[in-house]
C-alpha cells in the first residue's frame, strides 16, 4: 500500500485520462488531471458520429455527447482539473514538472502517474506537400467540427482507414465535395458500413493508389494520383489529375511517447498499433511500478477502447494506493476486461487483440 498522501497525476484529459481520473476519484483517491489544451475531452468533441460497440460502451451516442457526459461526471466528482497545463518533464521519484499557461512553471510530487498523452497523426511527404490546403484528416475534422470552418470545397482523402472515411463523410456533412478516397493497399481499411455510406454519396474509392504530387501556385489546385504495383511503385501511364483545393492525410497515428520515455518506461515496437510504445501489463501498468499508460499512447485504437483502458488503470491504481479493497478491484477489473474484449473481436479486433497480447508479453520480459 502506498497511501502516502501523494496524488495520482493523470496527464491528458482525453477519453482515457478522463475515465482513469473518474475511477480514481470515485474510489476516494486524490487525483490531479492535467491537459495542455484549454478544454478537456481530447478528440471526443470533434467526433460528431455515433459510436459503435454495445450499450455499455455507449454505442449509438455521438462522441461529443460522450465527452459532455464524462466532463459532467468529472465536475460532479470534483476532480482537480488543470487546463492549459503542459507537463514538460518527469524527474526521479515521480516529480512532475508542469508549465501553466506558458508562463508559470512548477514541480509537483505524484504518487502514481497515469500517462494518457494520446497519439500524433502521421504525415506523408510528396512533391507539393507543403502547399496550403494540405492537412491531416484530424486537422480538417477539428476545423469543421470544432471551429466550424470548411477548409475547402473539393477534397482528396489519402487513406481509407476509419479516420479517413469518417472524416470524408463529415466533410460532406459540412458541405464539401469529396473527389476521391485513395488507399495504397489493395483493399480498403475502414469499416464497410462507413465506406458504404461514403460510396453511396458518389465518392469513388481507389485502392492500390497513391498521391504523386500536389500542384498549385499559392495553394493546392490539383492532385495527381497513380496506381501502384505490389511493391508500392507508381505504374507509369496510370496518372490521373483531380481538381481539388484540399488534400487530407489519414495515414495513421503514432503514440505520443515522449513523457513515457522521460519517465523511463520500457518501450516495445508494435507496428500494427502505431510503432514504438511503452510495454504494459494487463492492468495498463508500464515497466515502472507506479506509471500507467492508457489510450492511444499504449497502442493506437479507438475512443471506446481508450475509455476502458483508462478505467482499468484507474481501478488498479486506486487499489495500489490503498483506496480500494482487493475484491472490489478484481471484480471491477474483470468487468472492464470483458467490455474491452468485446471491442477486440472480429476481423478488425482480432489483429489488435493479438498485438495487445504482445505488448503485455513485452512487459513481462522487462
Amino acid at each position, binding site marked *: 500500500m502506498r497511501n502516502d498522501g501523494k496524488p495520482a497525476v493523470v496527464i491528458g484529459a482525453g477519453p482515457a485520462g478522463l475515465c482513469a481520473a473518474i475511477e480514481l476519484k470515485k474510489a476516494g483517491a486524490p487525483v490531479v488531471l492535467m491537459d495542455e489544451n484549454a478544454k478537456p475531452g481530447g478528440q471526443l468533441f470533434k467526433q460528431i458520429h455515433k459510436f459503435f460497440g*454495445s450499450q455499455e460502451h455507449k454505442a*449509438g451516442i455521438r462522441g461529443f455527447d460522450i465527452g459532455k457526459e464524462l466532463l459532467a461526471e468529472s465536475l460532479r466528482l470534483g476532480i482537480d482539473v488543470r487546463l492549459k497545463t503542459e507537463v514538460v518533464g518527469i524527474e526521479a521519484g515521480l516529480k512532475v514538472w508542469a508549465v501553466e499557461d506558458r508562463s508559470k512553471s512548477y514541480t509537483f510530487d505524484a504518487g502514481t502517474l497515469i500517462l494518457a498523452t494520446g497519439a500524433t497523426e502521421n504525415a506523408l511527404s510528396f512533391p507539393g506537400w507543403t502547399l496550403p490546403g494540405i492537412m491531416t484528416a484530424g486537422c480538417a475534422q477539428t476545423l469543421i467540427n470544432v471551429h466550424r470552418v470548411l477548409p475547402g470545397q473539393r477534397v482528396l482523402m489519402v487513406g481509407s482507414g476509419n479516420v479517413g472515411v469518417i472524416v470524408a463523410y463529415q466533410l460532406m*456533412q459540412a458541405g464539401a465535395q469529396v473527389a476521391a478516397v485513395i488507399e495504397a493497399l*489493395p483493399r480498403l481499411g475502414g*469499416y*464497410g458500413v462507413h465506406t458504404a455510406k461514403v*460510396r453511396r*454519396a458518389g465518392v469513388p474509392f481507389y485502392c492500390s493508389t497513391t498521391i504523386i504530387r500536389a500542384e498549385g501556385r499559392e495553394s493546392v489546385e490539383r492532385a495527381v494520383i497513380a496506381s501502384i504495383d505490389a511493391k508500392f511503385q507508381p505504374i507509369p501511364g496510370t496518372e490521373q489529375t483531380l481538381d481539388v483545393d484540399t488534400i487530407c492525410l489519414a495515414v495513421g497515428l503514432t503514440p505520443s511517447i515522449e513523457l513515457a520515455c522521460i519517465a523511463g518506461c520500457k518501450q516495445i515496437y508494435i507496428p500494427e498499433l502505431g510503432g514504438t510504445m511503452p510495454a504494459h501489463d494487463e492492468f495498463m501498468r508500464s515497466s515502472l511500478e507506479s506509471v500507467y499508460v492508457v489510450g492511444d499512447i499504449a497502442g493506437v485504437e479507438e475512443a471506446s477502447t481508450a475509455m476502458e483502458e483508462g478505467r482499468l488503470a484507474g481501478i488498479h491504481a486506486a487499489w495500489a494506493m490503498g483506496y480500494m479493497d482487493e475484491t472490489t478491484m478484481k471484480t471491477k477489473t474483470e468487468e472492464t476486461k470483458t467490455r474491452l474484449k468485446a471491442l477486440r473481436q472480429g476481423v478488425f479486433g482480432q489483429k489488435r487483440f493479438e498485438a495487445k497480447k504482445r505488448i503485455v508479453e513485452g512487459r513481462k520480459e522487462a
Partner: protein
Amino acid sequence: MSAQQSLKTSGAPSLEELKAVGQLASEKDMEGRGCLCIECIEEIPCNPCQTACPQGAITVGFPITNLPVIDRAKCTVCGLCIPACPGLAITIKSVKDDTARVRFPWEYLPFPAIGDTVRMVDRQGRELCDGTISSITNPVRNNRTAVITAEFPRKFVQDAISIARRS
C-alpha cells in the same frame, strides 16, 4: 465468408455479397407492409440495432462482432432501428404495384421537403431514376439522424438505397 471484393475495393457491397450472408431481401419480402433490410456484412463490434428493437427482432448476440440477423416474424417494420445504427446500414423497403418505397437514414443538409423530386441512387452512388419524398421524421430520440421515405419505380427496388445529396 467471401473476400467481399466489392465492399473492400469499391466501398459498397454487391448484391451477391449481401446474398452470401443472407442480407438480401427478396421482392416477395417487400410486399405488403415491407421489410427491414440490414446491410452489415463485416464483423465489427457493434449491436445498437439489437438494443433499439422493442420486439427483439434483431439478434447480434455474443460476441458483438456477430452479424445482425433479422427475425421477420417478429419485426413490425416500425423503423426504430434505422436511426439507431451508427453505420447507417438499415433501410426499410416495400413494393406495391409499380411503386417501391425506401425508408433510409439521412444526415446531410439541406433536407429535402415532402413532395420534392429527388434522384434515387444505388450503392455505388449512381443516379438511377427520379423519386418523390413522401415523409421525413426526425424526432429527438433519433439523435439527429433523420429518417426519410422516397417513392420510385419498382424496377429499381433492389438497387436503390438512398437519394443524391444536393449541394
